[in-house]
């Protein structure tokens, strides 16, 4: 099913520079993400993979290039980005749960305030999703009372509560204690199985191999390799990718 769907995100020659062009974070990155795909982005730190991911929902504003999301150029300044962000869930390395709210209030904030859903209906849906990640009993807890793995699972549910068409993951397991990585990856694996379109920046090569429909290698702000996982890991062509894989595998 990997490449059959319609394009959902189309990135065209995305370039991002800082400090008036003196620092180049991304250079001419182009990528098409289709419905149902799980695109895993790997690369050494500082390679631009997080900047690339954060550009997809415009947390970083592109210097040049286009990002077409479901047919709309969202990098155009005239586009109301808030409207499109509702359809793109984002999960952060440091969870970024709202510490002054209970788990339930974290989950229903956006559905109620942005989409003006009935709070009771939003709660019903949130409970359903909570039970899927095995955290039904924590809905009235505050984030500070949760473990890292629980926080990240809640953060995933928070994004899912908006019914997104695509989920973006920015190193979702990098801030976790090793014994908690598994529970978060399992939730992501289930999500992928359910057909969710996902873009995942990660260092978890096992996840890339097993769940990814395509694996992307970035270095120096450029996309250097884009292949199905089997080829990516077994027949790497790019010299820098070979070097990278020899270090991480």
């Amino acid at each position, binding site marked *: 099913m990997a490449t059959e769907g319609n394009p959902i995100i189309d990135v065209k020659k995305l370039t991002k520079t800082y400090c008036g062009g003196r620092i180049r974070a991304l250079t001419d990155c182009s990528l098409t993400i289709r419905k149902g795909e799980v695109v895993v982005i790997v690369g050494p730190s500082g390679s631009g993979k997080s900047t690339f991911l954060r550009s997809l929902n415009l947390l970083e504003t592109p210097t040049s290039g286009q990002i077409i999301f479901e047919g709309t150029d969202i990098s155009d300044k005239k586009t109301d980005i808030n409207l499109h962000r509702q359809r793109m*869930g*984002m999960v*952060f390395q440091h969870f*970024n749960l*709202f*510490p*002054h709210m209970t788990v339930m209030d974290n989950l229903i904030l956006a559905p109620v305030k942005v989409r003006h859903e009935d709070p009771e209906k939003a709660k019903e849906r949130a409970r359903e999703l909570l039970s899927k990640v095995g955290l039904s009993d924590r809905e009235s807890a505050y984030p500070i009372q949760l473990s890292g793995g629980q926080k990240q699972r809640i953060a995933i549910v928070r*994004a899912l509560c*908006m019914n997104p068409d695509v989920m973006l993951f920015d190193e979702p397991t990098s801030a976790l204690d090793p014994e908690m990585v598994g529970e978060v990856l399992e939730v992501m694996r289930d999500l992928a199985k359910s057909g969710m379109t996902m873009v995942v920046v990660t260092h978890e090569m096992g996840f890339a191999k097993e769940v990814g429909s395509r694996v992307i290698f970035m270095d120096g702000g450029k996309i250097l390799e884009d292949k199905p996982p089997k080829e990516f890991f077994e027949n790497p062509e790019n010299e820098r990718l070979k070097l990278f894989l020899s270090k991480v595998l």
Partner: protein
Amino acid sequence: MWWSNLFAGMSPSNFFNFSFLPKYASFFIQGVEYTLLLSVVSVAISVIPALILALMRLSKSGIVRTISGAYISLFRSTPLMVQLYIIYYGLFSLIRIPSYTILGFIDITRFIPGVVALALNSSAYVSEIFRAGILAVDQGQMEAARSLGLSKWQGMKFVVLPQAIKNILPALANELVTMVKESSICSVLGMSELIWGAKTVASTTYKTLAPYVLAAIVYFAINYPASKVIEAIERRMRRGDRR
């Protein structure tokens, strides 16, 4: 000896000679009430313009930032007394305030210009308190809010400001303590607050020291416990963070 006269005026009997009190106590009681009302109302009013100034200062637009920065610099770099004179004789020579008295001794034709001057001055300081409080909230919070589709203002209102409040409240209370002291400047325009009361008693009774000593004691008795309470609350809030 010649020097024994030098300190004659500073003998304890002059310092603490409160014999004027039975007759003139009302000057001090009303003075305290005036002072407290003046400072509480001024700081309370300053909160809204201060929030606007702080948000302007954090704006993306350079012009908006400059306007806010200019206001803050202007009010922080000139003496409060000058601001008071300019507002009283300048602004309020154009605005007529109907003659009216609250609590029987607060004449609003003086009270309102005083509040306006103190509030304008205070908003410059309070806006910096707000700005620092907002900046202390982790940037990821706003990013998470925005990525859920919340607008910038919704992110501020529902996510950032509720967390910033914790940083802001103690500093705001400290600003109130400062204002209780600073409002004494209003005596130069005849607002009958605590210092004005002391001054009046001093010139009526020819006791030039003790009324001011009493005023100092009253200020201290208000501000010292207040700042201790603020400190305690601050400590408790910080403990809440670590939990």
